[in-house]
């Protein structure tokens, strides 16, 4: 999937501006604060909305005009709306029929099985819980075996066990060679999808790639570490005195510190501890998680 110079304007408001990227197989998380333009971008990627400028290609064609491209797309939209009077089974069968699947029954059974939907599948969708409807939407997106999947807040309404199961399913799909794009605002959930992210901030592409690699490239942002050791006062004083740490907070047996030169700090911290006969138990980064990276990128 390739987006080339994609922009979208609503009158004078530019929702997405000059976004370019290419995505291949695997799971990619689409991140951004509310109003950043993620949903608009996702809609354009599916062909649901026309870019003001730029172009989008899925499987080599524009999904807005090409049936062949749309046949390669599966979408779980964010909105709750489903055909309320349809049963779960007929909802998924409809997707299979319209998707050009030949063995509709078998494909439907498989899709329902993959999302672990069983029970009274002939009841109207409107009578089911949000979690059941969400899984029906996922089954409907999978039933025609698309090569590109767009999942907009796909874990909404699911209980923790179902969330784990769906995350495993998305991983499986990525490993099978499908391009899976997941938009979610719950960052610790997104972190479980994998490390590949596409960050949108104020309508622009702020970063793309492995978020840990992105963090390591952010030289202008000091890194924070937690150091657990004995002789905390001596070690802390030495770290500040030696210019290895710019900010220090001692919390019990731990030191939380900020450094502007992480490689140098990592290389020398053990020597400092040894110098003061301090026993070093743990050294862990505090802001290499997705939430910190995201905060830096969009701030």
């Amino acid at each position, binding site marked *: 999937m390739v987006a080339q110079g994609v922009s979208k304007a609503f009158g004078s408001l530019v929702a997405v501006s000059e976004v370019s990227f290419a995505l291949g197989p695997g799971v990619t998380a689409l991140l951004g604060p509310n109003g950043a333009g993620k949903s608009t971008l996702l809609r354009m990627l599916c062909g649901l909305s026309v870019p003001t400028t730029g172009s989008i290609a899925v499987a080599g064609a524009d999904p807005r005009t090409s049936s062949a491209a749309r046949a390669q797309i599966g979408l779980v939209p964010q909105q709750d709306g489903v*055909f309320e009077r349809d049963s779960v089974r007929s909802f998924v069968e409809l997707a299979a029929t*319209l998707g050009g699947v030949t063995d509709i029954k078998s494909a439907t059974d498989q899709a329902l099985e993959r999302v672990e939907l069983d029970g009274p599948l002939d009841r109207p969708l409107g009578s089911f819980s949000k979690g059941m409807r969400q899984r029906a939407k996922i089954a409907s997106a999978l039933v025609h075996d698309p090569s590109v999947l767009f999942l907009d807040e796909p874990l909404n309404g699911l209980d923790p066990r179902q969330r784990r199961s769906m995350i495993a399913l998305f991983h499986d799909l990525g490993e099978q060679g499908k391009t899976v794009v997941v938009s979610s605002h719950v960052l610790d959930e997104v972190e479980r999808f994998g490390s590949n992210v596409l960050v949108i901030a104020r309508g622009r592409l702020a970063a793309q790639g492995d978020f840990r690699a992105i963090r390591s490239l952010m030289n202008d942002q000091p890194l924070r570490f937690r150091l657990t050791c004995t002789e905390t006062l001596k070690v802390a004083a030495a770290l500040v005195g030696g210019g290895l740490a710019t900010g220090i907070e001692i919390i019990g047996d731990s030191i939380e510190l900020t450094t502007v030169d992480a490689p140098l700090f990592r290389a020398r911290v053990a020597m400092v501890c040894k110098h003061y006969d301090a026993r070093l138990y743990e050294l862990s980064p505090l802001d290499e998680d997705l939430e910190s990276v995201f905060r830096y990128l969009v701030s």
Partner: protein
Amino acid sequence: MNQFLAIYKLVLKHQVTRGRVILVVLATVLFAVLGRIARGESDPTETVVGVLALLGQGLIIPVICLLLGSGSMGDWHNDETLVYVWLRPVRRIIVAAAATAAAITVAIPATVLPMVAAVAMSGEVGNGVLRGTITSTLAITVAYTAVFTLLGLLVRKPLPFGLIYVFVWELFISRTAEGAQRLSINSYGASMLSRATDISLDFAGRGQTATIIVPVAVALAAIALSSARLNRMEVA
């Protein structure tokens, strides 16, 4: 063909709601009462045909077609379920044709029943009244439903727009000039009814061939425009 049938069945399933059934029952009862009243008039045939032309074809039929037609794809548009059909690799003309066909399938009994009830209760089933009522109702039902199906895709709130069209154009402006009458669907129904019953109606100057061809052409054009609209619209 499978895709056409799938969409056709989907629309059918969602068209028949309790509220709409109640509306049709009420319309049928109302027209049965009007037919019974016409029976007591000095010229029951002329009275019942007048009621059918003005209240039936001029008002009730377009309103029923508006409710059913605008809801066929318009409901998907409004409740954001259109995406489940739009994003599939189905030709837009198939979607438009199937949805319109399903809306017409439901609209036909919904419009024919009240009209036939009026004729039956008036006792004037002969002299071409029943035949003319059914054929003219069918013709304008097909045209109105297709037009309102298109309207459901064009605007988010089709009911006020549709009612303005019915009251302002069909019931008012189009009756003021011969040229405007040609652009009124109602005029073709009235002409068909007038010809079948041999009763003169003010609004019935269309030729026999036109009364058949124009409603069908309007329906086909509306389907083509619905297809084009599906191609160009932004989907939520």
